């Protein structure tokens, strides 16, 4: 299991479009993907769950990946979060 912390950039945070992109990327991997904000964990392959985090710009989000392809998944998904616009 791998974890990293990302501060959500961009003017509006993790809103619908980047969330949809994140989910599309996450679905490429077999690993389980989870996101957390303020101690609330949600499924990273569900856009509904991600949106309920309401991760606005500047919020501190933890990304957790566990599974056979966790190394690649973490790198790719971390980049997605860091490039939220």
């Amino acid at each position, binding site marked *: 299991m791998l974890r990293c912390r990302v501060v959500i950039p*961009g*003017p509006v945070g993790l809103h619908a479009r980047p969330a949809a992109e994140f989910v599309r990327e996450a679905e490429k991997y077999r690993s389980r993907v989870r996101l957390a904000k303020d101690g609330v964990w949600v499924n990273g392959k569900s856009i*509904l*769950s991600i949106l309920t985090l*309401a991760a*606005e*710009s500047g919020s501190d989000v933890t990304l957790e990946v566990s599974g056979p392809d966790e190394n690649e998944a973490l790198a790719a998904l971390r980049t997605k979060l860091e490039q939220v*616009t």
Partner: protein
Amino acid sequence: MPAAKELILRGMPVSRGFARGRVFVYRQYLPELVERRLKPRETAAEVRRFRAAVEHAKAELGALHQRVKSDMGRDFAEFIDVQLALVADEELLSETEQAIRENYRNAEYAYAETLKRLTRPMTGAAASLFRERVLDVLDVGSRVLKHLLGEAFPSLHSVEAGTVVVARDLPPSEAALLDSKRVAGLVLEGGGKTSHTAIMAKAKEIPAVVGVESLLREAKEGQEVVVDGYRGLAILDPTPRRLASYQSDIELYNRHREILAGLAEQEAVTLDGRMLDLSANIEFLTEARTARRNGARGIGLFRTEYLYLSRLTPPTEDEQYEVLAEVAKAMKPGPVIVRTFDLGGDKVVPGYVESNPFLGWRGLRLCLDNLEFFKRQLRAMLRASAHGTVKIMFPMVATIEELRRAKLVVASVKRELKRERVEFDDGVEVGVMVETPSAALLAERLAKECSFLSIGSNDLTQYTLAVDRGNERVAGLYDHFHPAVLELIRMTIAAAHNAGIWVGLCGEFAGDPLGILVLVGLGIDELSVSPALLHEAKKIIRSIDSGTAREIMQAAMKLGTALEVRRLLRRELHRRFPKLAEFIFEIGGDNGGQ
């Protein structure tokens, strides 16, 4: 049956025209569904039924994506990307299936309950940006439920012809596909002039009124209604007298449209053979097609702000390029004059507030302070110029230095593109939108340093008269026939011609019949109006001669007040061109061209 009492509801007109029809109330909600307990052996089939409904919804959204993309451009299709992610949501699907299998619930009930539960934190979320996604979630949810219930959900795609749609607002997937053959009119309780739905109605030429208070409380399914997209009225259960009066308005309006539509292929030429460039003001791709169909020679003003405001994040260069290239191709060989972003600082920098936005950090000023942002748009414009005739126009110019600096940025972007061996038209014309009194007063000097001038009469009026037309207390002072405004327009046209460049006007003045009379009298080269007004403008141009127009203009220029100018123009139009006057003022009466 006792006659129902007529009720007149007022709102904002956003799309001209009249409609008479039956109310169809569009409600978007998840219905209270019947809860059914399944027998254990029924659950597997129920899960299959659920999966099939989701697949149907997915396929529909996929097709919608294609259609909206080719109809409206990629920008408009973006919301469907989000809906596609929502419809396939892992949690939503697995929890629904779990409720079917383990709680023995029917699919509809299990799905609706799961959806409610999963979106509860979102409906309560403080961040409004996330809250607006609830509309998308509901849209997706009702789509899946519709399939589960076997089409029991009414959709706008299947309403009968002559329907007047009544709603709070429409979800984007419905608004994008409004069919003017079925939907005669649109009345919304919510929405503003610039809402997505209002823009769609205008583009599709469906008469529409928005911001109608207590609409949903008053309107009943199947009720007779008249939509007046001129005055901004929705009249429920109209009296026979009202109907008769509107019936003649509607017939007149349809007859006008027919006569005017016959002009699409004709030239915009005066009786004495003076040819004018008649172009259209547009905001997005589909309007370019309407403009073309209505006989526009080109696009006189492409407002790019919508590209920016329609989304939560600034558009990339490629995204802008795609839209601009499509518009350039649609109008080819006609010109497309693209105005660089005319945004206020509050729209670009979150939380930025200023006490006097109209005199503040906006338009070209803001672009010159955000070179990366500005260059990205200029690159997109220049790249699009390879596909047609693109011209660049700068808004809110008040000083010569601004024009010079902006031109330097264009030159540097051109060098960049050349280095990268990207194709573009090196001869792209660059012009100034004259909308500050300063630009009009300096027109002669500006004209020496650019290829064209286009008068933005709305802002020019606002700045010249120091009147915010959005402020009800002073809006009455706003009048583009004010002698001071006329004088600045006259100066600008003369200055352009002295410098040997062409000059146009792209504000509401150009769509005002009396305004056209003045502009033809002043010898303007180009008029740009909203696509819906093209035919009428052409009719006027073709019915007058420039000599008479000049005489009328000269008489108007001597007057001291806007009211005197209006009276004179109206009187002269009736006297010199009686048939034209009768035609123009037939609908809605002679209200002075307002």
